[in-house]
């Protein structure tokens, strides 16, 4: 068995443990915060709106970083979805459009 398969370095494990603690800690902090707040109508609207605004804030810069192909993928997927397509078809269409531009036109 090669040496680099099962070697355990304490400092590497400490680094991994910190990364894991921060990640689950953020989720738990969010969970307990909303529980202690006893959300009223305004906070409920805030939390209801979050899924959409998180994904929008995550996706739009991602699309711009990928350039024209990224924006085309976004537009393609949204267009297919809005015309009654399902999520898988819309995702595949966005990908196909972006890949066609990337390899067909080199953009």
């Amino acid at each position: 068995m090669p040496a680099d398969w099962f070697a355990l370095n304490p400092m590497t494990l400490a680094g991994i443990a910190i990364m894991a603690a921060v990640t689950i800690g953020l989720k738990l902090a969010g969970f307990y915060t909303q529980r202690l707040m006893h959300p009223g109508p305004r906070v409920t609207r805030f939390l209801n709106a979050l899924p959409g605004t998180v994904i929008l804030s995550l996706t739009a810069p991602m699309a711009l970083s990928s350039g024209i192909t990224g924006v085309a993928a976004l537009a393609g997927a949204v267009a297919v979805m809005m015309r009654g397509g399902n999520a898988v078809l819309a995702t595949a269409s966005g990908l196909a459009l972006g890949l066609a531009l990337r390899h067909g036109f080199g953009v």
Partner: protein
Amino acid sequence: MTTRSADAQSASDVDRPMWRYVLARCGILVPSVLPFGMAVGVLAYGKGFSLIEAVIMSVMVFAGASQVAALEAWTSPPALLALAAIVAAVNSRYFLTGATLGPILSGRGKMRGFFTLALAVDANWAIAMQMRASPDERSGFIRASGLFLMVLWVISTAVGHRLGTVVTDTHAFGVDLLVISFFSALLATMWRGGPQIASWTTALAVALGVWWAVDGYWYIVAGAISGAFVAAFLGDDDQEASDAG
């Protein structure tokens, strides 16, 4: 309202055994998870991780973008505080994930809640928020799909570690485009119009502005919170009713 919620229960999206529902909703993600996980494995190998260390990281952290960012900044021995800051910045959106999952987890036991939170990632959380199902079906979906994605994630990390110096060309295969298309299709299903116009425009403007002006991943939280604030103060009951439906 009673009729609406009764309709919502009878018309659950989970119309088949959970594992088949998970495959139907998450199967499309396989081509994007595998190369991404392999990239993490390749990076970990380059930073001197053993195979078992790379696997432990992918199981315990289970958050791809933050693993890539942390590995890129990895020193030997690791600078623990810097590592914590990087992971907190990239994963700050998970605070919002935990908050939005609260309503479907409350009163269902600590262990179940913990594992649901641990197994929640962007993709299955987004699907669970958008799917029409009971709270238990939603949290069950997150655990089942999270386990499915974690198995893929760990296998691809291990394969990537073994590939070592070979760097997969994720750009040519359009992995970025697949992720963008997946989230864009979800956005389209979440679009209700009306009062959402103001909150989504705000989120978009703030996210792009912060993304352009500030290094790192703060744009996600900045855009999300500012947009949701607008919804909190401008929304009306019609908005809530349509969100619930």
